[in-house]
């Protein structure tokens, strides 16, 4: 097991009180697992991704632990986390289009980045060229400025940089949302390729595009309002979802798996509750067609069969 997240709580500080963006999240990730993380925007999936790599200024680590390969990550301590970043946990950010310094040649930027982590550039140079070839980029791009690359090229370049030190965990946040459909597929394939070649041990793919997740993920985790709703193998989640929220998500899609790139999760009436602070009980209660009295109590995130966990009284 490469990653274990235990009761993770990360709040946003705002002047009107804490927003409980992650409120007790527990899951684990096996070696070689690609986990898709889905949910509506604002459900906390990006917060979860950031928590594993780098909290932004307003986030606060309130409780819970993250253990990677047996070592606990000091996610609340920015400076101590540096040792783990890039080499152990890495990220392909949402903003890959603007992730590279616009005024540096890409090669030089990589050299300076790698050098700043105390690794001689020469020692990774040949591997860098190999990886570029792997994603279909010419080594010549290193001599160029980011502005000279197309969107898909930038995306692939960022993927190569992020995975250069063979991280144990890669968080890929909405990697395809800025791309057109055909490029999306190439990028998704490249991501899976990194895992298949063992360049990345395990991966969390955050997306609100279920069809992308279906294409590359081994397991799918569904988040709702700061908590996990359901986690299970991709086939199971798509074909036999147990959480009413997951069921609505899936049925909102015309046909999962048939190439419906770009189809967004939508079509569930109502909107998620405020997390400042969240209402007691099951958070989906207000929108849930199956809600009943028991739902005033918060359901546990419990396994109903091996590898398939659901947080719903109706499921257990």
């Amino acid at each position, binding site marked *: 097991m490469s990653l274990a997240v235990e009761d993770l709580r990360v709040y*946003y*500080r*705002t*002047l009107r009180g804490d*927003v*409980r*963006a992650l409120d007790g999240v527990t899951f684990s990730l096996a070696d070689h697992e690609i986990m898709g993380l889905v949910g509506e*925007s*604002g*459900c*906390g999936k*990006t*917060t979860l991704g950031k928590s594993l790599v780098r909290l932004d200024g*307003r986030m606060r680590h309130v409780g819970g632990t993250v253990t990677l390969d047996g070592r606990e990550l000091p996610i609340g301590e920015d400076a101590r986390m540096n040792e783990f970043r890039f080499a152990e946990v890495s990220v392909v950010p949402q903003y890959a289009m603007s992730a590279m310094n616009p005024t540096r040649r890409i090669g030089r930027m990589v050299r300076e980045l790698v050098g700043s982590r105390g690794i001689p550039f020469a020692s990774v140079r040949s591997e860098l060229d190999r990886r570029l070839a792997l994603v279909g980029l010419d080594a010549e791009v290193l001599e160029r400025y980011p502005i000279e690359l197309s969107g898909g090229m930038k995306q692939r370049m960022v993927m190569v940089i992020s995975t250069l030190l063979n991280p144990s965990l890669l968080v890929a946040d909405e990697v395809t949302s800025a791309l057109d459909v055909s490029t999306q597929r190439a990028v998704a394939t490249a991501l899976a390729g990194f895992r298949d070649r063992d360049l990345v041990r395990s991966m969390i793919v955050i997306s609100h595009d279920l069809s992308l997740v279906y294409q590359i993920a081994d397991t799918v985790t569904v988040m709702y*309002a*700061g908590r996990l709703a359901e986690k299970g193998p991709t086939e199971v989640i798509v074909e036999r979802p147990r959480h009413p929220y997951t069921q609505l998500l899936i049925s909102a899609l015309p046909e999962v798996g048939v190439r419906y790139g770009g189809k967004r999760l939508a079509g569930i009436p109502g*909107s*998620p*509750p*405020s*997390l*400042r602070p*969240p209402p007691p009980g099951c958070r989906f209660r207000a929108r849930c067609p199956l809600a009943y009295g028991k739902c005033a109590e918060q359901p546990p995130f419990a396994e109903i069969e091996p590898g398939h966990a659901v947080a719903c009284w109706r499921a257990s």
Partner: protein
Amino acid sequence: MTAPEPVSGESGPEVAAVPGVATVRGTGVRREALYFAVRNRKLVGGLAVVVVFLLAGLVGPLLVGDPLAYVGPPAAAPSGEYPLGTTTFGQDVLAQLLHGLRATFLVGTVAALIAGVIGMLVGFTGGYRGGLVDEVLNMITNIVLVLPVLAVLMIIAAYLQVRDVLVQAVIIGLFSWPWVARAIRAQTFSLRAREFVDLARLSGMPVRRIVFREIAPNMASYLFMVFILLFGGSVLFAATLDFIGLGPTDGISLGLMLNHAKQWSAMNLGMWWWFVPPGLAITAIVGAMYVMNVGLDEVFNPKLRET
């Protein structure tokens, strides 16, 4: 004299992607802005300084006599009778200061309004229309932008044989708008692409209405900050013109006081009460406005708020 532009060009508080916080619009935003405004030390402090000087400029002249009359003993240091002393000719420095403040606020306000309106019109039109109209307007903007404004004002003012504060304000306003036009053009470009503007366009609203009903309100906070910067810049321009001898031919202004002090060797004679107050007043007003602007920027742009 450098006008520090607002840190952010952001208009309207983008409630950033904090999960679980529904985007608030309309009254919610306004109430939130007010909440932060009254708690922002920079904004409140700056505003207090400006208001004090504004009141002094509005009420003060009613309480003192003719600022140019020779009323007291010449070159007297500050005393009970003349709190800021007198000039070489026995004019009351306090009376000059109070009248000068009034002129300063007048110049700043009128020039800023003129430059603001021109800048907005040019910027909105170019940014919204695009195409050839934009090309031409942009070219004009760039030309006026590289023209050294002070030198142009110098020539115009020199040929005007009768100058008063209003005329000065008008010519300053006529040449200070280009950076405003540029900034607004850029913002209009980005706002134009937003959904709510598309919606208005699809529903057949005329261009003018779209700009003033949909685009301008979204930039209101930004326009307010632009006004403050224009005010500060205009006050400094006016003071500079006055100082080189192109100030109002009748009446008094803070820059003219400095001009007189220099002309009649107040420095050499050690008459500090003649040249310290007017410069201090300008610095305090303009400085307070700039600080206010920083405060406003923090209020309107949540990213800059200190948590």
